[in-house]
């Protein structure tokens, strides 16, 4: 009895391992890589352009109207991306739409950020550092204490691992004075000293209100931003930029994105849908990119099977949009056949890049693989315990491999 139980344990382990690896091996062998275009918008010809890597150093440059370009022509169409190279070639145009072009002016007036699935709620230690935002030094200095923020704010001296009571009290009082209701919920900052200045932390409190916490000359400064608490905030990102247009951006649970403007913390919604709602943005599956250039702004959303780009003006007035599509992974032949062969697949990474064992069943397509496995077992390998058939019925090919490898012992 124990001997049988032991055998089925081994079979179970083999099923787990093969369900983890075999579908991957299959995809590596048979799934054809699709060359996906990288969309961009040329302010020179006011047209969407793209380049597409075909492997072996072959790159295709073109626009959506059907013209093809050489690499040099393509670079000239996108002076805001390739200004350094163009300046070296002395081919940087003097001005576009009234904006005088130079490396310096472009760098000063451009900004980029992206929201990837792995940026949303990543694994992190809830201990933060607060920079001095009006420092006497040219660079930001990494402070000598850290703080924790949940039911209260506590500054910790990392050398002795003790709470600095005096500073904690001052900051707690400043936050309470500003109307902060503990416990804190989302704490968002940009804990790096490789930035031009510091805007501290954006914190949501128990009532959903958003506060900004900074340290100015050693003193706390806590400001109630007045951002609508009804806004279902999922994550706040902070990024200091010398353009000083926005502090950061907010991602909501409804997949909407807002910029937090320097102008009295007003919110400005970034369009994720153009005129039509197809290929709607979903933060769990897609990558969002936002480019600010001197003459316009680009929104690019990349998902499985499409890349969508929306171009808006400096004041977010709609200019143009374009979607390029290709066959998504689920609809490719290799992927469909995979679902017929294997009954299910185990994977360990979630889209947010956490590790978690999760199974995906290919119902009802997997019936074919299970049926064939059962048939093979019946035809070629009779005389085995009935439970072997149950195993194959439940796990298909994986079970077949396992029961054939590990022979039954009397």
């Amino acid at each position, binding site marked *: 009895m124990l*001997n049988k139980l032991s055998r089925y344990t*081994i079979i179970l*382990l*083999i099923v787990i391992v093969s369900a983890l690896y075999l579908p991957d091996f299959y995809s590596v062998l048979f799934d054809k890589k699709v060359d996906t275009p990288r969309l961009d918008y040329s302010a020179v010809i006011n047209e969407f352009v793209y380049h597409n890597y075909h492997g072996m150093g072959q790159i295709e440059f073109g626009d959506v109207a059907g013209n093809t370009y050489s690499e040099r022509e393509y670079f000239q169409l996108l002076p805001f991306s390739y200004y350094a190279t163009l300046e070296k070639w002395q081919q940087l145009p003097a001005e576009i739409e009234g904006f005088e072009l130079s490396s310096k002016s472009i760098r000063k007036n451009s900004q980029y950020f992206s929201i990837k699935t792995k940026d949303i709620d990543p694994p992190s*230690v809830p*201990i933060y550092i607060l920079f001095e935002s009006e420092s006497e030094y040219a660079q930001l200095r990494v402070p000598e204490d850290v703080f924790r923020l949940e039911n209260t704010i506590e500054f*910790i001296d990392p050398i002795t*691992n003790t709470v600095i009571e005096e500073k904690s009290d001052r900051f707690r009082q400043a936050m309470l004075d500003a109307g902060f209701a503990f416990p804190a919920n989302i704490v968002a900052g940009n804990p790096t000293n490789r930035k031009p200045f510091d805007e501290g932390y954006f914190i949501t409190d128990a009532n959903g209100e958003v506060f900004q916490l900074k340290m100015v000359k050693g003193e706390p400064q806590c400001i109630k931003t007045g951002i609508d608490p009804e806004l279902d905030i999922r994550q706040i990102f902070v990024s200091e930029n010398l353009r000083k247009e926005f502090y950061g951006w907010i991602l909501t649970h409804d997949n909407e994105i807002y910029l937090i403007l320097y102008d009295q913390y007003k919110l400005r919604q970034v369009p994720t849908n153009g005129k039509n709602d197809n290929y709607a943005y979903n933060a769990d599956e897609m990558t969002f990119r936002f480019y600010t250039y001197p003459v316009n702004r680009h929104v690019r959303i990349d998902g499985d099977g499409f890349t969508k780009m929306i171009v808006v003006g400096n004041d977010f007035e709609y200019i143009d949009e374009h979607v390029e599509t290709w066959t998504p992974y689920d609809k490719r032949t290799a992927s469909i056949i995979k679902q017929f062969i294997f009954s299910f697949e185990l994977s360990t990474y979630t889209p947010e890049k956490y590790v978690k*064992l999760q199974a995906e069943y290919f119902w009802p397509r997997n019936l074919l693989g299970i049926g064939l496995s059962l048939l093979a077992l019946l035809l070629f390998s009779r005389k085995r315990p009935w439970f072997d058939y149950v195993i194959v019925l439940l796990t298909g090919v994986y079970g077949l491999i396992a029961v054939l490898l*590990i022979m039954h012992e009397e």
Partner: protein
Amino acid sequence: MFLLAEIIFLFLGLWLVVSINYPAEVVQKVLMSTLPWFLGGSAVYFLTSFIILEPSWTYRIIYGIVTYGLVDLYFRASTYDQYKTLWAFILIVAVMPLTILFSGHRFRRGIK
């Protein structure tokens, strides 16, 4: 049993040493990051004895491949506290001691 005691001893020791120098948040992350490694270590222990007891070389090779696949599961994190739920991983380790019986049975029967 001895293995379990050893793991608990090491785990508590780590807890003690880390909590002297670091705040509670860091301690929690350290322990949660090392837990899969302890599980992985136990998996190696059980599966090695499972391979060594097995008399036939063909089976040993099969078991070796399975062992690699299973142990790899516990070292998939690239940053701290990346394992979201550990229950499935704990269960897999928990059934592993059972596998040794089958190898032992074959060993006793003297299968080549």
